[in-house]
C-alpha cells in the first residue's frame, strides 16, 4: 500500500484537471461535484489503506520514502519529487482527505447554482493536492511546493467571487502575507542547507537525512536563525502574529473554503511544519520560546477580537487564529504531539463550525433573497432563534461549540487541556511556563465566551431576521447536513484516541494512543530537548487534576458570561460598549492592526515606489540619460553658432588654431 502513496495527491490532481479543463463543458453540477468529491474520497480511501498498513507495522518500520522522480538536481543540491510516510504525515493525510471529502460533499449542496461551479471544485481539488504534497513531501522543497500551492489555492478560492473588490483584496492580501512567510521559509531552508553542507558536508534538504544529521547542528546559534526563519513561514501560513490579518479577510471566500482551508487544513501547515522539523526546532531554545510566546499571544489576541465581531464567519476566523495560537503554544513548549492532536480535533470541530455557519448563511441567504431584503446574511445581529428552523445545524453546531470551549467529554477538551498542561509543566521555558499557561487559560475563557456568544446570538433568542424572510428559513438539504453530522460526531468523540494519561488510568490504563502513535516522530526532538531542559513544574497528578478542573471552570465561566450577556440580560453588551467605547472600538476594529500595517508597510512602500518611479527613475536616472543627451544636443545647438557663415570668422578660427598649436609646442 505504501508504494501507492503517489495516488493520494494524484486523485485530486486528476479531479482538478478534469474539472478545470472540461468542467465548463460538463455543466452538470452533480457530475462535477461528484468528480471532485470522488477524487478526494479516493485519496481518503488510499490514506485509510496506508493507515491500516502502518498500524500493522512495528513502530520502527513506519517510515517510508517514495521517490517519484528526480526534480531538481544541481551540483550537490538534490531535491526529488518524493513522498514521506510516517505516523505524522499519515495523521495529516487522514485529516486532510477525511475532512476534505466531507467538505467537498458539503460544497455540492452549498455551491449549488453558483456561477463557476466547476471552477470551485477544480480549485478545491487543486488545494487538496497541494495540501497533500505539503504533508507528504519528503524534503523541504516538495513541502514548499505544497506550501506555496495551498497559498495559491487559498488565493484562488478567496478570490472566488472575483467581481467583489473586497474578495480580490482579501485574496491578494492572503497571498502576499503568505509570501512573506514563504520568504522566511526559504531563508530558513537556505540557512539550514548551507550550514549543514558547509560545516558538516551534509548537503541535503531531505527531512529524514536532516534528522539523521541533526546531531551535527549546534544548539541555538545558526539553528535559531534558521528556525526563526521557518517560524516566520509558519506565522504566515498559520496566521500568527504578526502575519495573521489575512485570515479574517479570507472569509470573503465561500464558506466551505473557510472550513477546509482556513480552518481545518492549510492554516495548520505551520504547525505541521514545526512538527515535521521538531528535531531542528527543539535545538534552539530561543526559537521554541518565541514560538510559544507568539502562540500564546496570538491565542489571547485573536480571542479578544473575536468577542466583538458580528459577522458569524469572522468570529470563527478569529477563533481559528486563536486556536492556532494554542497549537503553536503547544509546539513552542515541546508538546508536539499535543499540538498535532489539537490540530486534528480542531479540524473536526472548526470544520463543523464553519460548515454549520455556512449552513446558516445558506439558509439566511435563501430567506433574505426570497424576501428581497438586502440585509447581511452573515451578520449575527440579523439572526437569532434559528435553532427551531435548523435543528440539525443547531445540534452539530452546539456540539462543536462545546468541543471548542473545552467541556470535558468532547474532543476539544482533551487536546486543549493537554496543551495547557504541557505548557505549564514542560521543562523548557522556566517560569515563563506559568505565564504561558495563564495566557492560554484566559484565552480559553475568551474562547468559551465568544463561541457561546455566537451560538446564543445565532440560535437562541428572538428571530431578528427580516420579518418577510422568516417564513423562508428552513433546514439545509442532506448533502449539507450529512457532513455536519459526521463532523459533529467526530468533534464529539475525536478526542478519545488521545485520552490524557490521567484519565486513561482512571479507565483502566487506556494509553494515549495518539501520543504513542506519534512518539517515534518526536522521540528525537524530546531527546534533544533534554539537553537543556530545566526542571519544570513537578509532574504531579494532583496538580494536573487541579489544572484540568481549572480549565473546565474557566470554560464554564466564559459560557456563563456569554449566557448572562446574550440570553439573560441583553442590554449588557450595549452597556458595556458605551462604558468602554474606546476599548470596544479598538477590539471591534481588530486593534487597528490592518491600519497599522498600512501605515507601516503598505503606504510607505507605495509612496516609496511612487517616489522611485516618478522621482528617481524618471527624474534622476532617466534625467541623467536624457540630460546627457540634452547637454550634447544643447552643445550641438550652441556650437553650431560657430559656423557664422563669415569667411573672416572661419579664417580667424584657423589662424587661432594654428597659433594655439604653435604656442603649445613652442612654449611647452
Amino acid at each position, binding site marked *: 500500500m505504501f508504494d501507492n502513496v503517489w495516488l493520494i495527491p494524484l486523485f485530486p490532481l486528476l479531479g482538478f484537471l478534469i474539472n478545470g479543463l472540461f468542467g465548463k463543458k460538463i455543466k452538470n453540477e452533480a457530475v462535477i461535484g461528484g468528480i471532485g468529491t470522488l477524487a478526494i474520497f479516493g485519496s481518503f480511501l488510499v490514506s485509510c489503506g496506508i493507515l491500516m498498513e502502518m498500524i500493522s507495522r512495528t513502530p520502527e518500520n513506519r517510515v517510508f520514502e517514495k521517490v517519484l522522480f528526480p526534480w531538481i538536481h544541481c551540483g550537490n543540491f538534490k531535491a526529488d519529487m518524493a513522498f514521506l510516510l510516517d505516523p505524522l504525515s499519515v495523521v495529516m493525510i487522514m485529516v486532510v482527505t477525511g475532512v476534505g471529502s466531507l467538505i467537498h460533499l458539503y460544497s455540492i449542496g452549498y455551491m449549488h447554482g453558483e456561477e463557476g461551479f466547476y471552477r470551485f471544485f477544480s480549485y478545491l481539488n487543486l488545494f487538496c493536492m497541494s495540501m497533500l504534497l505539503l504533508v507528504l513531501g519528503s524534503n523541504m522543497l516538495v513541502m514548499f511546493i505544497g506550501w506555496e500551492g495551498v497559498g495559491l489555492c487559498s488565493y484562488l478560492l478567496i478570490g472566488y467571487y472575483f467581481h467583489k473588490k473586497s474578495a480580490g483584496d482579501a485574496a491578494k492580501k492572503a497571498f502576499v502575507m503568505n509570501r512573506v512567510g514563504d520568504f522566511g521559509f526559504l531563508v530558513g531552508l537556505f540557512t539550514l542547507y548551507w550550514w549543514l553542507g558547509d560545516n558538516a558536508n551534509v548537503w541535503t534538504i531531505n527531512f529524514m537525512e536532516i534528522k539523521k544529521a541533526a546531531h551535527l547542528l549546534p544548539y541555538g546559534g545558526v539553528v535559531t536563525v534558521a528556525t526563526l526563519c521557518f517560524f516566520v513561514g509558519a506565522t504566515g501560513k498559520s496566521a500568527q502574529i504578526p502575519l495573521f490579518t489575512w485570515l479574517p479577510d479570507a472569509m470573503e471566500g465561500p464558506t466551505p473554503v473557510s472550513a477546509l482551508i482556513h480552518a481545518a487544513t492549510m492554516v495548520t501547515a505551520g504547525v505541521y511544519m514545526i512538527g515535521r522539523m521538531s528535531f531542528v526546532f527543539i535545538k534552539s531554545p530561543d526559537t521554541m520560546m518565541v514560538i510559544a510566546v507568539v502562540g500564546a499571544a496570538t491565542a489571547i489576541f485573536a480571542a479578544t477580537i473575536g468577542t466583538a465581531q458580528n459577522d458569524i464567519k469572522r468570529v470563527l476566523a478569529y477563533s481559528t487564529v486563536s486556536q492556532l495560537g494554542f497549537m503553536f503554544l503547544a509546539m513552542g513548549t515541546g508538546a508536539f504531539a499535543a499540538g498535532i492532536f489539537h490540530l486534528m480535533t480542531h479540524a473536526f470541530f472548526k470544520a463543523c463550525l464553519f460548515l454549520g455557519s455556512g449552513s446558516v448563511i445558506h439558509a439566511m441567504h435563501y430567506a433574505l433573497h426570497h424576501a428581497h431584503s438586502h440585509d447581511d446574511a452573515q451578520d449575527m445581529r440579523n439572526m437569532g432563534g434559528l435553532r427551531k428552523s435548523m435543528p440539525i445545524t443547531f445540534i452539530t453546531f452546539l456540539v462543536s461549540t462545546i468541543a471548542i470551549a473545552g467541556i470535558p467529554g468532547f474532543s476539544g477538551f482533551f487536546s486543549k487541556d493537554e496543551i495547557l498542561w504541557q505548557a505549564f509543566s514542560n521543562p523548557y521555558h522556566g517560569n515563563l511556563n506559568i505565564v504561558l499557561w495563564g495566557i492560554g487559560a484566559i484565552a480559553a475563557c475568551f474562547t468559551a465566551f465568544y463561541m457561546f456568544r455566537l451560538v446564543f446570538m445565532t440560535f437562541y433568542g428572538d428571530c431578528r431576521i427580516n420579518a418577510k424572510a422568516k417564513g423562508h428559513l428552513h433546514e439545509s438539504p442532506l448533502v449539507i447536513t450529512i457532513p455536519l453530522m459526521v463532523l459533529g460526531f467526530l468533534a464529539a468523540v475525536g478526542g478519545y484516541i488521545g485520552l490524557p494519561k490521567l484519565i486513561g488510568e482512571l479507565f483502566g490504563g487506556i494509553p494515549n494512543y495518539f501520543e504513542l502513535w506519534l512518539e517515534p516522530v518526536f522521540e528525537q526532538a524530546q531527546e534533544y530537548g533534554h539537553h537543556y531542559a530545566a526542571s519544570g513544574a513537578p509532574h504531579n497528578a494532583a496538580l494536573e487534576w487541579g489544572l484540568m478542573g481549572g480549565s473546565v471552570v474557566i470554560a464554564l465561566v466564559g459560557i456563563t458570561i456569554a449566557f448572562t450577556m446574550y440570553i439573560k440580560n441583553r442590554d449588557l453588551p450595549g452597556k458595556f460598549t458605551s462604558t468602554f467605547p474606546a476599548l470596544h472600538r479598538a477590539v471591534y476594529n481588530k486593534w487597528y492592526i490592518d491600519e497599522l500595517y498600512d501605515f507601516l508597510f503598505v503606504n510607505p512602500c507605495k509612496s516609496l515606489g511612487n517616489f522611485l518611479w516618478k522621482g528617481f527613475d524618471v527624474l534622476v536616472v532617466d534625467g541623467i540619460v536624457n540630460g546627457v543627451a540634452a547637454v550634447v544636443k544643447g552643445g550641438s545647438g550652441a556650437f*553650431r*553658432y560657430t*559656423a*557664422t*557663415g*563669415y*569667411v*573672416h570668422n572661419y*579664417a*580667424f578660427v584657423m*589662424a587661432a588654431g594654428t597659433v594655439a598649436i604653435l604656442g603649445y609646442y613652442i612654449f611647452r
Partner: protein
Amino acid sequence: MLSLHHYLILSGILFSIGALGVLIRRNAIVIFMCIELMLNAVNLTFIAFSRYLGNIDGQIFVFFVMTVAAAEAAVGLALMIAFYKNRGSIDVEDINLMKL
C-alpha cells in the same frame, strides 16, 4: 652683415600682416590680396633659404608658387565676378547665405 634671420623676420612680419588682413578685411578682393601678401612672404622665405643654403630648389619652388598664385588669382577673381553678378557685392558679410 645681413643674415638669414633678417629676411626670415621680415617675411614673418609680412606673413602676419597678410594674415591679419585676411582676418579683418571685408572685401573679398582685398582679402585675396592679403593672401597674396602672405604667399609673397613665403616666397621671400624660400628665396632667403635658397640663398643661404646655396640650393636652388627654393627658388624653383617660388617659381611654382607664383604660377599657382596666378592660377588662383584667375579662378578666384572669376569666382568673385560670378558671385558679384548674383549678389551685387563681394563683401564677405554678404557671403553668408550658408551658416549654422
